[in-house]
């Protein structure tokens, strides 16, 4: 537990200052072919302060959350800001004042499970794979739990406390064909502590059965024909496209750094079927997988409509970029560990659902692919992207055919989104990954299925 109230230190702030106390707690269990290969827990806590002086920042942190250390950290951050200020001699704009205030604690109300209970749960999953799935040559069950608990006080008067958990299990299954290993992994879980997310092993069985079935089909699968094809990107791919290829180009620090989106504001960048939003904490009346209510600059987080019916409308901001772009701070300034400074980060980025039915979209494709699961994705400032594809099927004459082996899709997102001709009416979130940008950070991404033309790599 960390202190929830930091008000006693406000008299030490001489410049604009953020004071944050934070603890990240994690558990990792990995069972490989029945052996417990990893069984560890970790906690990392401490205090940090960030101070702004005439356009430059100072930051300092310490792992000890004691009164003298907190005082020292505030003094050191101020010293660092003044060091830069004295050399840079800039005339900085005052930052906008934001007064976010509140507390959000998503700790489970159920009795906490012991580590043995959790390992037994993982082993039960592993045992079922061994007993039921006969063609498996290698299996790995990996569980990762993360609680992020933070308290914030700013010199504006903003004050916030939050405890945001996530619980993710990754199951990787391999089978062999012609002396080659074929792997497919699937992701289970999401927002919440273990007790709320993984209520019983049998709650995963249905998804596990589908996972095994997809692997068996993949083992008999083919490599797609290379070239630009009509494809249906399922929700996981639409989500990663929204995050990696569009989202990063519309973070205002990236826009300042040369992103292609700088020239596209208020221009048509996608089909009118595409609306894309970075949700702060809630969407469609439900809590998002990575809820952010008040960011680490004390700004109340709001949804950012990035693309509205095909037109690029807004970038994501922290306090500093909001001045430069003549906008408001949007609550996207987030830090991962206690000793990280807040950066502009996405939260829950999604393409909004449309009106088409997935079955109708598949039926409409004569010669193409239904791409279901990405492995990883990369994109750059031009919005050119590359996503690995680990699960998918060919579509021939409106029907799903053979499964695909691992392949890649690529393209320029702002070009590709103009080819979208249908958006499904279902929405799915995924929150397993950590976004990397100097620091890692939990994010979620989501979307419906979209029909578009995309370059597929073949073999």
């Amino acid at each position, binding site marked *: 537990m960390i202190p929830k109230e930091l008000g006693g230190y406000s008299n030490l702030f001489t410049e604009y200052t953020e004071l944050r106390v934070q603890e990240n707690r994690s558990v990792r269990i990995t069972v490989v072919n029945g052996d417990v290969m990893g069984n560890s827990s970790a906690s990392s806590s401490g205090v940090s302060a960030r101070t702004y002086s005439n356009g430059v*920042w100072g930051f300092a942190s310490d792992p000890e959350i004691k009164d003298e250390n907190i005082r020292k950290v505030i003094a050191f951050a101020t010293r660092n800001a003044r060091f830069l200020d004295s050399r840079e001699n800039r005339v900085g704009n005052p930052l906008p004042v934001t007064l976010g205030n509140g507390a959000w604690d998503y700790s489970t109300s159920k009795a906490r499970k012991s580590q043995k209970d959790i390992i037994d749960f993982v082993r039960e999953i592993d045992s079922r794979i061994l007993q039921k799935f006969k063609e498996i040559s*290698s299996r790995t069950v990996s569980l990762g739990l993360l609680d992020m608990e933070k308290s914030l006080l700013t010199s504006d008067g903003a004050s916030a406390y939050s405890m945001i958990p996530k619980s993710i299990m990754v199951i990787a299954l391999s089978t062999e064909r012609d002396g080659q290993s*074929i792997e497919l992994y699937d992701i289970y879980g999401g927002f919440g502590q273990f007790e709320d997310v993984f209520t019983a092993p049998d709650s995963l069985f249905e998804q596990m059965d589908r996972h095994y079935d997809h692997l068996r089909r993949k083992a008999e699968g083919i490599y797609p024909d290379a070239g630009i094809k009509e494809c249906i990107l399922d929700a996981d791919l639409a989500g990663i496209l929204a995050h990696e290829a569009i989202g990063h180009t519309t973070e205002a620090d990236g826009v300042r*750094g*040369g992103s292609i989106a700088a020239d596209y504001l208020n221009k048509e960048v996608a089909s009118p079927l595409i609306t894309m939003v970075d949700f702060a904490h809630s969407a469609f009346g439900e809590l998002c997988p990575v809820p952010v209510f008040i960011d680490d600059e004390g700004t109340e987080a709001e949804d950012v409509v990035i693309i509205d019916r095909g037109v690029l409308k807004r970038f994501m901001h922290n306090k500093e970029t909001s001045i430069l772009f003549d906008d408001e701070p949007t609550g996207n300034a987030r830090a991962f560990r206690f000793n990280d400074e807040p950066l502009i980060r996405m939260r829950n980025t999604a393409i909004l659902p449309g009106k088409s039915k997935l079955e109708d979209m598949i039926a409409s494709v004569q010669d193409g692919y239904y791409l279901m699961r990405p492995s990883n994705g990369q994109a*750059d400032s031009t919005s050119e992207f590359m996503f690995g594809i680990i699960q998918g099927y060919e579509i021939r004459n409106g029907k799903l055919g053979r499964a695909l082996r691992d392949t890649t899709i690529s*393209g320029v997102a702002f070009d590709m989104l103009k080819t979208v001709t249908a958006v499904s009416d279902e929405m799915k979130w995924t929150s397993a990954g950590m976004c990397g940008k100097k620091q890692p950070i939990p994010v979620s991404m989501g979307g419906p299925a979209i029909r578009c033309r995309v370059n597929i790599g073949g073999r």
Partner: protein
Amino acid sequence: MSSRKDVTNYCIDTMLKAGIQKAQCTLSDKSRDEFNVDSGEISLLRTTNDTSLHMMGIVDDKRGSISINKTDTESLDRAVKEVLDLAESSEADSANDISEMQPSKVFQKGSTEPNLNLMYNRITAFLEYSRKAYPSLMLEQAILDFVSKKSYFRNSNGVYFESSRGIYNFFPMFTSKDGADISSFNYSGFSSGNLDRELHEYGSIDTLMRQSTEQISTKEISGKFTGEIIITPDCMNEFISHITMFLSDYPLISGTSIYKDSLNELIADPQLTLHSRPVSDEISDGYFFTPDGYEALNSTIIEKGVLKTFLLGLYGANKTGKPKAVNCGDAYVIDAGKHSFEEMVSSVKKGILMCRFSGGNPSDNGDFSGVCKNSYYIENGEILYPVRETMISGNLDKALRNIRRISKERINFGSEILPWVQVGDITISGK
């Protein structure tokens, strides 16, 4: 406790008293001073201190481990209890063990304190240089830091190591823009024990900045063909990580590594010799002991194409019955080849100078594919133009066997020393 050495003693003693039969503890204190540049301007001076204490205990062949960042007695006692709980809740595995007795050693490298004024002057000069030399280049972010780290390792077999290291690191990320045309972003970096040169003179930074300005205007290549790629030292880093991933604990234990039966077998063209040299003078970075408690030694992983060692730790070696590595990888050095870079380019009939690869990890069978970023088309021995939307695909095992040439020239990044490597029979596809 009066010293950090005492903290490690306390951890081992308390674990043994609690009933843990084999105990291991690593304590690290790290401080970092970091100048940040955002959008071409110095934006932040960041000073961080952190502690990392990792304890591992084995009871009846069952293992548990914990990491915390506190060293007060109350936190240590609580952590020991949790290690015991974790171990007792785990499953017995005879592969769990700690390193055997070795002579105690104290290691030191680099300075312990940063020169903040020198760091500020160097980064200011770098900003000035990049503005003047490359007006179209936009420095999205740059980080110059000094990291000082003191580490202490102890286990219940009597092993004790202590190391103290200080190193400067620089990482610039940039793109170039002319009107509405922009290049893909690119980045590079280096590690060094000192800052005795201007920042752009280290590693390949100046070359990549120049190339970035050339890459504002790119061309598509058409069709699909089998050709050669010349992988630059910056890009080679990624391919080495894929090779060494297949030599590490997880794929060898799970049996999915393509090299699981290849020890002392030819896996690459005989021109390739790859070392891991964490304690070499030519590497500014590196490390002195492994996380599982062995003094790190330099090793040759691939010698004239023959796989000489896996990168198995103690657990992985016990689990697979294969030999343990004498280090845990990194600090990679590839021996210089016989050909100049110019000779290599002039030998390529049709191919790509691959400067950055945007792709995922290879499949279990070694297949890989991805996009060539910041890269150039080569035809009839000439580098013609920067490309866009160009993909390559191949198989890692076959690519190593299809190495055609390795350059005489190498880049020392401080953390690795790598040449240009020419590989044949790669599928290259344009739009």
